[in-house]
């Protein structure tokens, strides 16, 4: 059982790390700010989400698990909102806040 959990953790964390890589490549290679933003949100939400998922399988106790989910939710919330604010300001003519 523990072996299966470990394997799942390794799978989830590796996939998460891959999304971080993809996000970075997108940030470096995409031509304009809005598509770079698109790449970034994938890395943020999925990458961290998968890492958290992998670690949840190893978490001891429900409070530790709750904190892990809390970290992810906070990042998600902040990421989404900031992304939208940036998208608005990056749009031509949309400099007002």
């Amino acid at each position, binding site marked *: 059982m523990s072996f299966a959990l470990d394997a799942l953790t390794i799978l989830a964390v590796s996939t998460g790390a891959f999304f971080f890589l993809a996000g970075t490549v997108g940030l470096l290679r995409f031509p304009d700010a809005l598509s770079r933003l698109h790449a970034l949100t994938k890395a943020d939400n999925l990458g961290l989400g998968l890492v958290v998922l992998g670690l949840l399988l190893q978490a001891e106790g429900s409070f530790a698990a709750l904190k892990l989910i*809390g970290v992810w939710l*906070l990042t998600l*919330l*902040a990421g989404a*909102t900031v992304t*939208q*604010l940036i998208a*608005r300001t990056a749009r031509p003519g949309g400099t007002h*806040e």
Partner: protein
Amino acid sequence: MAFDTGLVLLVLGVAVWTIVARDTFAAVVGFVAYGLLLALVWVRLAAPDVALTEAAIGSGVTGVLLLGASTRLRRTETSGAGEKPGITLRLAAGMLCALVSAGVAAIVLKFPEPAPTLAPHTAANIAATGLGNPVTAVLMAYRAIDTLLETVVLLLALVGIWSLAPDRVWGGFPGARHHADPEGVLTFIAQLLVPMGILVGIHIFWIGSVAPGGEFQGATILAAMWILAMMAGLVDAPSVSRRWLRLLLVAGPTVFLAIGLAGFAMAGAFLAYPAPYAKLLIVTIEVPVTLSIAATLALLVAGPAERAPQR
């Protein structure tokens, strides 16, 4: 070891960027990243208490303070360009700094063996405080006078900042008034983040007696949430002449000092706690101190009064 080497290279890279960046805003972004990476370093050095403080103050609140300043000073960027020192001075400065670095490095390499440590003394006396976290025990018992003076230093800095206000706005409101847009994204995020943040802040403060955390870390998070609410326009900064505000600011140091003086009567020395009540007294000090520090930190970021008080 490979991880640590990579982390060190990253820290150094970001530090170099902070120094050489042409644009001040970009340099501040670099500084925030520097603080974040240092928090990781502190975890590697087995100092989670410090990592929390670094993440909250070193990176977060200092970052916001410097970002605000760099935005305001943006127009002066170009005027400073002509003042860049000549190549000779830069070279001399570089040599001097390399020398200083080499000196510090030599000290690091020649650290005495075995390393001097106060850990055994802390371990021997921690039971008397009733606390489980050695760092909190040091802050509140062994070095309590440092902590008391620190709360006073924070207040002095705030008095210094307040006294920079021009006469016409004396005793007024700090910073610009931010207006909340009821349908705006910023209002939305602030309404969600502030309650969550207050919860996290109280959690970090409360676990400080048994696990990494404590008053400074908790207070910084609370301060950040207050500043966020001000930036989003949910609340206005209070006028600096308000009586409740002044009372809130001095409550922590006053309680701390009072219990410290009571130590003469109860245990025979300043800031000495009678053993059976040590934990109770420490918590009694910590609660008002946390609130005072939170208010002071937030107002330090808000700056001097800029709008006249309402008559």
